[in-house]
């Protein structure tokens, strides 16, 4: 009977962990800019990504993100390679991809085909000509 008690206790603990895990999952995690590993963070060693082009829920279909890439000093970065990947939060959906085209110095237009209503996580990767990179995730909602 003791063994059973401990098993039930372990199950109860697992349930508490489960609830805690759920709370974590509902928060939006947007990672900061990434840097070259091992280097000290200075204005010249990291990039930041700013996104625009969506406020509030979007309708399904073609859309475009406006991505601005800056360096640590806040200056726009020209000639960067910008790519975006869109995943639905539901499993089993094929991801979508978009490649950024520079429309103004440091500003990139990334076309995306949000082909289904629901929650999307857009992961944007930017790499400058001198090899610095940054990644940012943006959550957005598509409503039919």
């Amino acid at each position, binding site marked *: 009977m003791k063994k059973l008690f401990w*098993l039930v206790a372990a199950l109860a603990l697992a349930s508490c962990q489960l609830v805690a895990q759920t709370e974590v*999952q509902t928060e939006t995690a947007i990672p900061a800019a990434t840097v070259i590993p091992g280097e000290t963070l200075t204005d010249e060693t990291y990039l930041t990504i700013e996104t625009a082009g969506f406020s509030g829920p979007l309708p399904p279909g073609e859309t475009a993100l406006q991505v601005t890439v800056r360096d640590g000093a806040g200056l726009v970065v020209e000639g960067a390679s910008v790519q975006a990947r869109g995943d639905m939060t539901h499993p089993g959906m094929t*991801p979508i991809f978009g490649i950024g085209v520079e429309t103004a110095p440091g500003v990139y237009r990334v076309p995306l085909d949000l082909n289904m*209503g629901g929650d999307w996580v857009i992961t944007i990767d930017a790499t400058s000509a001198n090899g610095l990179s940054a990644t940012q995730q943006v959550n957005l909602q598509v409503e039919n």
Partner: protein
Amino acid sequence: MTAKLKTPLYQPPPAFDALWMPLIGRLLRWRWGRLTLQTPLLLIALLLIYDGFSGSPMASRNLATITPWVHFRGLAVLALLLVGNLFCMGCPFTIPRTLAKRLSIRGRRFPRVLRNKWIAIGTLFALFFFYEWLDMWASPALTAWVITAYFAASFVLEAAFTESAFCKYVCPLGSFNFTYSAVSPLQIQVKNSAICAACVGKECVNGSYSPQPVTLIDEIGIQGEPIKTHEHNSRGTPGCGTLLFAPQIQSNMDCTMCLDCARACPHDNIGLFGRGFGAELSRPKVWQNRYDISFLVIGLAWLGLVNAFGMVPPVYDLMQSLAAAFGLTALGLSDKLIEGVALLLIFMVGAGVIPLATTFAAAGLARMLTHTQKRDKLRVALASFAPIFVPIGLGFWIAHYGYHFLTGLWTIVPVFQEFLLNHRIGILGEPNWTLGGTPNLELIGALQAVAVVIGYAASLWLTQKIALRLYRRQMLAGFVVWALLLTVMLLAGLWLFSQPMEMRGVVIFD
């Protein structure tokens, strides 16, 4: 006492017995046959737990979410329709059974008051509600916890009780499989019931396991000499975990297709026989006119609608309206909590109040119109028609799970490639995320409609059969009432599956 075995004058041609199929039959009959099926699924389950806790938190890039919510469910409903309860047969959660039995406090049965399907109805309702509310589909970690909880619950109940209480009374997946295996073309049956009547050990239910060898005498000859004996020993097989007695089995309900009965039978008198699709559904009193089984079946059909409704745009408008109507937004509750309350209301009405009200009303009305109030109790009038909800319910589930299965069929390949690469195994190369391309949603939509309409048509056919058996000349009046209810469900299903999918986890209330 020995029963004499009489050879009947007419012997029907032998039915198809899956246990005598080449290779597969031998594997199924083998002592370790079930374990052979369970082991790969156990490894997959452990892999899912591992990836769920340690892999990408993004559901579309994690095996823990892709495998159960996209592939497992789709394959399970197809297997139920085309073969049988294969997923209970290969269920990995029951593998620790032997260990649990060693820890078991022997002799204790599951409490009599709980030996019914009410707990299973509760766990099914809870599973689908929490699936929607907590967005289990979007959380690999949560899914891994659910799988872990399954192992734990199965183990604890196996250890605490003599029979497989988890499978029979608790497991929501098992209850789903039991219900829809009613349409499956395979069923456990005995070859000759006279042999069962003469059988001494009833090994199909009692098992042939004994720590010390015991010899049983099945038949005694004229001189008192044993004609047929067999031995129980430590290499024996446990009997039916859900305590089904093979010659009395008329339905797949509660049968996990573990085949322990066939392995334990010393007379080789049990087979896995072919039968017509849904053959048991038109048999009278197949589920003993029980309310619990009836509402398991009826509730599951409605849950099929409610579960799909949780993933189309109108549900969000309805939740907003409910939150406003009940003043939930004014209470200062979090959006998640408001969503939970609104969703609970939708589930309680859609999978509780409506099924109860409509089926009682239909049963009452049919009794009145056919003038059978004095002859049939309301329970009999309702439970007799419970089987008609199986085909239409399965149609809803195939439409829903089939959608996810077909749209996400190939997505498991790049996810597995990425998993291997993350563990420095490059054997499958770089993930090909565009594999399968964009699914043809028009074609999938048409297939969904076909599944729902076929389910409806089968339900109607069943309704006229049951109405004819129950009401004879008055059958039309009884048939029309139930057909009307099925038609309402059909229209609801067609409307629902014509809506665009919108899988939102975050709902913001005004």
